[in-house]
């Protein structure tokens, strides 16, 4: 069975919505996986998309047991409905440490429930899609367990069963992925698995052939142009090469979003821009044109420009490509540092959404250093996802090979 967790040895039926119900049992099927062996003590993983309609049924009938995670037991909430009621009703008997994300320990329980209550992940409601996509063999997806270790946070960006092809090259093939709010997420994967395509879907530069992409619960592909441009102001995006405007000097590049989108005066703009430039160590280079800068400086300048509007979501497209290991490490530290600052800032200002960072990379070292949450993408789908320490302890041979950067394992040159 292509999606089975290796070593579980459990045979599952595969067709239709009933596929999760083990023969001879009346209990709701989605819980079956909670009994799988070998998950360690990190909290039970959720099958991506496993909490479909059977789960809903189970909730109605009051069959919930405490053997599974908070995230799973949260019943689907209709739009506009306050999720916190359900949370308190269903979550009271749950050990809070059970669902804590890697860095969530520092947070108060109140904050967590507030963050969760504000919005509900829709990925939970997806029907299971364990069959390999059209034209692919089960073997190719045998390491895709679709496990999602709980982060304890709502997802800022969600991919729901997204398909995207360019001509005959099928890039995203039923992608289900979430980027939890207030965390530094990594989207890791071998080259050519559609990581950059993912980012372009989040900001509406590309549209999925099928499926949906949600940002703060709003569907990006369904937005009208004006709405889309408005939504994009939530994003800061650092392109691979910085994508600075060649016709402007560094200062004007960073000031550009402020001049276009705010009514701030030049003095205030200069304050903000210089603060950002100093933050990335480019205060002295303000008059330089982009072509006079090195690759690393261009990246840092792009970083400063991505941050000036204080976006809720910052995306990094391979920030480490073309940088030496030391600069990569420094950039990673800078990312963490700025994320911490923005978190403090967001909490101080009582912002509705905590800053979410997503870093695309195939550099394992920076992933280990920087990530709170890791999505491993391969062949257009998520293999596994979860908080960094869960992922680093994963049993999945593909994840183990990839995170260790070894040549032996499921991933080969083809």
């Amino acid at each position: 069975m292509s999606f089975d967790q290796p070593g579980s040895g459990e045979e599952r039926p595969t067709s239709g919505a009933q596929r999760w119900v083990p023969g001879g049992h009346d209990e709701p099927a989605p819980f079956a996986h909670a009994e799988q062996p070998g998950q360690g003590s990190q909290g039970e993983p959720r099958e991506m998309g496993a909490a479909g309609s059977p789960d809903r049924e189970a909730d109605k009938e009051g069959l919930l047991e405490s053997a599974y995670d908070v995230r799973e037991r949260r019943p689907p909430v209709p739009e506009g409905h306050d999720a916190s009621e359900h949370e308190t009703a269903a979550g009271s008997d749950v050990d809070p440490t059970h669902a804590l994300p890697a860095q969530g320990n520092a947070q108060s329980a109140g904050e967590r429930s507030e963050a969760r209550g504000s919005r509900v992940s829709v990925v939970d409601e997806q029907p299971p899609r364990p069959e390999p996509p059209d034209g692919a063999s089960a073997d190719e997806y045998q390491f895709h367990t679709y496990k999602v270790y709980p982060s304890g946070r709502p997802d800022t960006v969600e991919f729901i069963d997204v398909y995207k092809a360019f001509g005959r090259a099928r890039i995203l093939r039923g992608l289900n992925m979430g980027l939890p709010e207030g965390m530094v997420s990594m989207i890791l994967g071998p080259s050519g698995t559609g990581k950059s395509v993912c980012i372009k879907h989040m900001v509406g530069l590309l549209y999925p052939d099928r499926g949906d992409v949600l940002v703060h619960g709003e569907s990006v592909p369904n937005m009208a142009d004006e709405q889309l441009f408005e939504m994009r102001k939530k994003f800061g995006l650092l392109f691979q090469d910085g994508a600075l405007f060649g016709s402007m000097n560094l200062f004007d590049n960073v000031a550009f979003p402020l001049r276009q989108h705010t009514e701030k005066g030049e003095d205030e703009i200069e304050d903000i821009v210089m603060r950002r430039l100093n933050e990335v160590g480019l205060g002295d280079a303000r008059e330089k044109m982009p072509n006079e800068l090195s690759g690393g400086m261009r990246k840092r300048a792009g970083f400063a420009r991505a941050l000036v509007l204080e976006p809720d979501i910052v995306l990094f497209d391979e920030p480490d490509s073309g940088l030496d290991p030391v600069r990569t490490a420094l950039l990673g530290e800078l990312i963490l540092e700025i994320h911490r600052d923005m978190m403090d800032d967001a909490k101080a200002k009582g912002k509705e959404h905590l800053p979410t960072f997503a870093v695309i990379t195939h550099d394992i070292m920076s992933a280990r250093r920087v990530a709170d949450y890791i999505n491993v993408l391969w062949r257009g789908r998520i293999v596994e996802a979860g908080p960094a320490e869960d992922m680093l302890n994963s049993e999945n041979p593909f994840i183990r090979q990839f995170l260790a950067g070894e040549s032996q394992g499921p991933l080969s040159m083809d």
Partner: protein
Amino acid sequence: MNELVATPRGWVESFGEIVRFTSKVVGEVLRLRVLRFFGEALRQAGILIVSSTLVIWGLVFIIGLQCGIEGAYFDQANGVPAYAGVFAAWCDLRELVPYAFGYMMAAKVGTGLVAELGSMRISDEIDALEVMGISGIRFLCATRLLASWMVLPFVYLASIGAGFFASYLAVVQQIGDVSSGGFFLIFWEFQNPPDLLYSLIKAMAMATVIVLVGCYYGYNASGGPVGVGTATAKSMVLNIVAVHLIGMLGTQIFWGANPRAPIGG
């Protein structure tokens, strides 16, 4: 059979794409949304004036000289040297100045647009702009179209002046078979004020098409530096064809039925 149909179908498809893209750009300008970036439009206008005006005037001036010289010697050989002004009045105003303007626009401004926007596209600058919540079509294309509409009528009128002046220099000062007064008598007799307007319409149609085609190929460039090169070459071909089509149609429409020299008798 499929292969036979595929090529023309590709042309029709890309033509449809161009039409859709250009109607978007023109719509942004006509609905005045572009005014949000009026500063950028002014900057583009400035670039157009500084970088392209002299080249266009220079080319038109040389063509005016040639037209004047050939016309003067032809009339001299046929015993009517006083009529050299006809060439200046017709040839310059109706055909050569618009064509020279169109060629130079295509070669200088059109290809420049493709190369600039194309490089912006492949270095992700356009995507960066879009992600900042700014419409690339509005900020990059509509502003350039508006700039060309603001600037080029004056550039063109001045280049007609340059052409006329060159013809006058050649016929009266250089060859000197006709007096200044005699030249102007014929020169003004063979043109009316509407002719100037028609000529302007021709040239502006060319300029608009060139800017839009340039924007289209640049904005939609793909495939790295090679792709930008290919797009530039393609835009040049299309622009030259368009310049000739507009030149021919314009002459037929505006002067085809002119009783002084009806085309087709």
